């Protein structure tokens, strides 16, 4: 390092770093040759080929799935036409196939499940995010997520062997005695296995999704909004309801949509408790106490005995139907989720 004295002359200065010892001042023998040899080896192509193989296998599986199901169902769609999607008759003897009852069953159970799960789920999320003492929030959250880890067959078993008798002997009789609702929605003989029970089981299974995603949405609202409301004299409930929840609304919408997608995909637990009535009664009965069928449960109950040919093709058509609906709903949910993430990062940057 150069140092200059008063007169501008360069003067030697002590070095800051230690000197390189003489034996290391020449390049190490053989390193360059070894690297050159390594370079000369062929290769690298295998890695790229491997990656393309992995991606191709995945895409092939996807395509095969779609093609197999679509071709398997084509016979039924050709036979029944578009009326398959809403016609209410499913008769093997007369060879008339329509998925109408199943669609109604799916819509009803999904709707009622959301009706039960969304208020409870969002309320729980609000408690965990805004109101719970710090040390309690995380353990409670983990517990609620545990429901999602339980295999659906176990939930189905519990529903079948524990809830069906419970509903048959206690819950449904009580419900049918309610003044107004008892005639409208809870009419008919209590059998236990019913659309109502299927909805309840679905609600239990989608609760963790609603709670976890809503909690993320609520926690993600910046502290600044809460402080601003607090400093203006808002009570804690006003802060939650007027400042936090409106900001989190898009995240909660995404949560509900994804929960709906999850409900659509649940087949086995529903099949065990829904009653599986494949014939449409005269007129559409509006009671939740009646047994019914959903798209998923219909597949499970009819595929095993379906004779190859039109009958089996009809069941595969139901599979395609269910697939289309649940893929659409899940895709919508993912889009909502991504849009919210983009909104949040735009706001932070502003």
């Amino acid at each position, binding site marked *: 390092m150069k140092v200059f004295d008063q007169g501008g002359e360069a003067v030697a200065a002590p070095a800051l770093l230690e000197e390189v010892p003489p034996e290391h001042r020449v390049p190490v023998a053989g390193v360059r040759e070894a690297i050159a040899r390594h370079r000369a080896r062929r290769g690298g192509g295998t890695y790229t080929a491997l990656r393309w193989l992995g991606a191709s296998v995945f895409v092939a599986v996807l395509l095969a799935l779609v093609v197999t199901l679509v071709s398997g169902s084509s016979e039924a769609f050709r036979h029944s036409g578009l009326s398959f999607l809403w016609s209410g008759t499913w008769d093997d003897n007369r060879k008339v196939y329509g998925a109408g009852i199943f669609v109604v069953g799916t819509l009803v159970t999904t709707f009622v499940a959301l009706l039960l799960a969304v208020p409870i789920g969002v309320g729980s999320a609000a408690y965990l995010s805004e109101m719970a003492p710090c040390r309690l929030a995380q353990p409670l959250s983990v517990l609620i997520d545990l429901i999602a880890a339980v295999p659906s067959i176990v939930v189905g078993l519990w529903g079948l062997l524990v809830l069906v008798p419970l509903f048959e002997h206690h819950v449904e009789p009580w419900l049918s005695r309610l003044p107004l609702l008892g005639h409208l929605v809870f009419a008919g003989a209590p059998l236990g296995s019913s659309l109502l029970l299927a909805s309840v089981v679905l609600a239990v299974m989608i609760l963790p999704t609603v709670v976890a995603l809503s909690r993320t949405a609520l926690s993600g609202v*910046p502290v*600044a*909004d809460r*402080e*601003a*409301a*607090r*400093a*203006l*004299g*808002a*009570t*804690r409930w*006003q802060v939650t309801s*007027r*400042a936090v929840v*409106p*900001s989190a*609304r898009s995240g909660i919408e995404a949560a509900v949509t994804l929960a709906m997608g999850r409900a659509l995909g649940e087949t086995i637990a529903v099949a065990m408790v829904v009653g599986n009535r494949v014939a449409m009664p005269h007129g559409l009965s509006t009671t939740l106490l009646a047994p019914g069928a959903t798209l998923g449960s219909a597949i499970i109950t009819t595929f095993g005995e379906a004779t190859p040919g039109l009958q089996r093709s009809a069941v595969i058509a139901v599979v395609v139907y269910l697939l289309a609906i649940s893929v659409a709903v899940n895709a919508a949910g993912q889009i909502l989720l991504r849009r919210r993430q983009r909104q949040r990062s735009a*706001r932070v940057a*502003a």
Partner: protein
Amino acid sequence: MTQDTVTSETQTEQPDMPTAVPTPDGAALDGATGSSPARPPRLSDPLPDTGNAVTLQGVGVSFGDHQVVRDVSFNLARNRVTALVGPSGCGKTTLLRAINRLHDDAGGTVSGSIRIGDLDVYAKDTQPELVRSRVGMVFQRPNPFPNMSIFENVVSGLRFNGVRSKTILREAAESALHHAALWELVKDRLHSPAGVLSGGQQQRLCIARALAVEPEVLLMDEPCSALDPIATAKIEELIARLAADVTVCLVTHNMFQARRVSHYTAVFLLGDDRRTGQLIEYGQTDHVFEVPMDLRTKAYVTGQMG
């Protein structure tokens, strides 16, 4: 409402421009009509005593074991701007938030006494929400509610406090926007989202929002630190005008801003234990900056430390 002589502080004498607006209702100001409170006084002018809007006695704030600030006693003189200055980490913001009980939610413990008029802020039967409706706060980064329009933002405080009458909401909003010098800018787009405004305008919107509740005291936590120099200058001018209507307490790490804008200054520094903030001097701004009583103040204001 404002005298334009606020400019004479930084420039040579200008011909007095005629006052364009009627003076505000003097009755609400409890007698402070005489001198123009908008101009920070020179060393020679004694400040007329307007009484104290807020008194702090022996106030300390701690979080668990950590004492952030200790034994603070000073006053916020009514209709004057009091600046809290000092390097970062001395507890100025913590102390400011103790005044409107914002530490209640964050688990802080406040000792000592804070009185607004004759209201003991930390008395057992004092409701924090009522305290906060008499003491407004403006934060470091502008934080208008994102899902609300400009109008809804301004009246949000009124709505929180249960005011329903549409007449009062409209008039309070217009009055607050006038006081924040935003009315001309937004009067035709009151229902646009707040996000269309620039940073400085958003901060003035937050000021209007705080003013709409008609607080007696306005606490401002480094309101210009996230803004560009022009927006900062506008807000400083606004603060000087606002003092006519509310008592202002301004936390700032910028000594020059304190000098420009405040009538009284309180200087905070870390105590000898290097962990707890303390108030080391409080007085009229000119005295504190030109003839400070404490050596440490002198070191701080001359830039030797901090």
